[in-house]
């Protein structure tokens, strides 16, 4: 039975009782997704690797910096304005580009890969004399300004008299109500449910799904991890790596694939598009993640060859691609040397 909502104001604290039928929804979802081995293939805590400086540097290099793509018109349904024009000297143009660099860094800031959060278990007090005070639980939130939402005090008084810290879902809902973040909805949008998510991915809207997931969830939210991993795997299956290139999601995707040992498709993509540096970086990343040491070879070609002969999973396809690439390189170098001779 749905109960009426009751509002109190006690000084700084405000409470908002959550309807009983919602509680079941939250707990069931967190139970389902506690298993981190769900369709991923790794149980390692990715945050151990993600925050290392050398890993971050490699991921940054792999992402690339296509200014045109980063600053493209995303067509988000906003009202168009006529363009503005300015007359600038060269110095001013350079200054503007410096400002754009700062903006670019912010746009390419990678959302972290974390393991799923542990459910909140802290109980503040058990007051059995209060039990049955109402047939719904009361949630209290501290709405002082300037506190980080993860550290904000959100407590719940259950009908059985227990005063506990709010669960992650309750916390996020309350914070969104009182301190809304743009693009985030109070309850999870239907788009992130399995069937609808699959529809979106089938349409190829990877960047949209990932951007919305970033806006909607916290990075350690089980739902976020589920959505992002599904998207990354989908991109890997369909070889659509270029859609995420020069976006903030490319780095996390690459790290995820490396952790799953599913980076061969990506390596194949790099080799066929003749991006040797990127391929070499990818192999270096692999070594960093799995053996925590940078490989001894400095030559990129050697590095890639060693990987293909050694830890690669899809050896035949990679070998073929690599051989083709080497042939093309040889021909190109021959043509260049002939040209040089002719000019000399």
């Amino acid at each position: 039975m749905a109960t009426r909502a009751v509002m109190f104001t006690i000084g700084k604290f405000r409470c908002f009782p959550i309807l009983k039928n919602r509680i079941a929804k939250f707990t069931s979802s967190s139970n389902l997704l506690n298993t981190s081995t769900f369709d991923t293939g790794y149980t390692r805590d990715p945050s151990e690797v993600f925050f290392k400086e050398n890993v971050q540097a490699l991921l940054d290099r792999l992402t690339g910096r296509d200014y045109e793509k980063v600053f493209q018109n995303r067509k988000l349904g906003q009202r168009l304005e006529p363009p503005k024009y300015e007359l600038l000297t060269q110095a001013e143009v350079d200054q503007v580009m410096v400002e754009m660099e700062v903006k670019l860094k912010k746009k390419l800031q990678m959302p972290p890969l974390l393991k799923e959060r542990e459910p909140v278990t802290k109980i503040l007090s058990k007051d059995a004399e209060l039990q049955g005070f109402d047939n719904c639980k009361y949630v209290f939130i501290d709405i002082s300004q300037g506190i980080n939402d993860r550290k904000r005090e959100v407590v719940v008084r259950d009908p059985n008299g227990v005063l506990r810290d709010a669960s992650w879902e309750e916390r996020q809902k309350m914070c969104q109500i009182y301190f809304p973040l743009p693009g985030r909805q109070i309850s999870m949008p239907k788009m992130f449910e399995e069937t609808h998510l699959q529809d979106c991915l089938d349409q190829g809207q990877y960047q949209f799904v990932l951007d919305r997931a970033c806006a909607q969830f916290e990075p350690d939210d089980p739902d976020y991890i589920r959505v992002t991993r599904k998207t990354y795997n989908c991109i890997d299956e369909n070889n659509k790596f270029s859609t995420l290139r020069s976006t903030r999601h490319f780095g996390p995707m690459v790290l995820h694939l490396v952790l799953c040992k599913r980076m061969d498709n990506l390596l194949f993509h790099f080799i066929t598009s003749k991006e040797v540096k990127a391929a070499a970086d990818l192999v270096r990343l692999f070594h960093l993640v799995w053996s925590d040491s940078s490989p001894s070879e400095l030559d990129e070609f050697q590095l890639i060859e060693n990987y293909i002969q050694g830890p690669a999973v899809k050896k035949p396809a990679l070998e073929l691609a690599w051989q083709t690439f080497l042939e093309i390189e040889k021909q190109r170098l021959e043509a260049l040397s002939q040209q040089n001779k002719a000019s000399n």
Partner: protein
Amino acid sequence: MAGLWNAAKCLLQLSPNYVCCLRMSLRPIGVTIQPITLFSTVQSTPSIISSKRFNPVVSAVRNTSFFNKLPAESLWKGVTSVSNAGKKRGRGRAVGKKMAKNLNKGQVVGVGKTNMLWPGLNSPIIQGKELIQQKKLPDDPDREAKLLKLRDEMGAFRLLRLSPLERGWSGPKLPGRSVGPPDPVGEDNFEGFDTIVLEFKIVCNMKGNLGRTRRTSAFVVTGNGNGLAGFATGKAQMGMTALRKAKNRAAQKLMYVERYNEHTVLHDFFSAFGKTRVFVQKKPEGYGLVCHRAIREICKAIGIKDIYAKVEGSTKNVQHVAKAFMVGLLRQKTFEKIAEETKLHVVEFRKERDYFPQIMAKPSEVKTTKAIDDMDLNLHLNAGKVVSKRKKGFQPNESDPSWKNHISKTERFRNRDQVRVNLLVEHGEVRSFLADKYPECRQVKFMKKMEES
């Protein structure tokens, strides 16, 4: 007999309004005179006229009258009553006025009420080797009806009904309507060109010898929607001739207009012609042609799809509006030209690209310091002048109690539209938390009754 005639004279004397004569027929038995009420009531004096032996029947019938004696022209003149001078001045051609109808229309010499074959008139005399004889052909029962219908439709001025796509600015009138591409000249077929009439009026010139001479003046614009357009005016006695002249003259005076991305002008500008001033603003895709109707047609001819133009001063003088606008368009400066003039980079910033700079034009050499004039591009283009913008819309006085009252009432519903959308997304219908408990308060969607086939 004499008595009767005397009686008739008396009748005539009694009623001086009689026009027609009385035809008196003498009948031997039981004749009566009936009083005639055609023109005026007559005091019947049967005592004078009634005779024991015969009463004459009087009926007003004429075999000949002015109808037969006068020509059609003078008869119509009597009805329409417009003098020769009046006709020259075009009087008597208003909508309600009687117009002379040509009753010979629909009739052929030789065919009449009795449908007869007259060799030499409505058939050849010899056909093959036979002599054709006069013959009575079967009657056409509808002939009368057809003629009457024809005559009814003549002279009635009925308004043309045009489809919305063909209509101009106002009804079936020519301004705003397309009159097709210009006539081909040599090899040029003017493919893709369309002309639109901007003004179609009757102008007069007064002279000593000729007096007032009327002519139609047509002002048209022609263009191919791809940067080429031209306008011209043509004058002639007949409207169609004037249109044709204007159209072809416009085709001779084509001008190329620079556009930005083929959808709008290069930059904001101001131009004037006479008392007509035009302020033009560049607008983004999807904005549309928000401007004077003449400017809209010119933009369509050129191929401009998004613009804002404000006409101040004489807005009715279509020729001035068109000229002011065209002059402004031709005086536009391309980015390359601006860069060369100012020796600075012309950089574009777009909001949807998070103001990422896009260099539109680079000069051959760049200067290192900027003057005051280079601070704002619009200032540079308008020679230091700035458009004075009007304050737009309702500006509420925040401390006004009536405004506060309004806000306090409408604040509840400020997010109502978004709430409806969210409810539809979540539940598929607009419902409240009470909908489960009280199913009768659910919204019932109106379903049209489908006809059973």
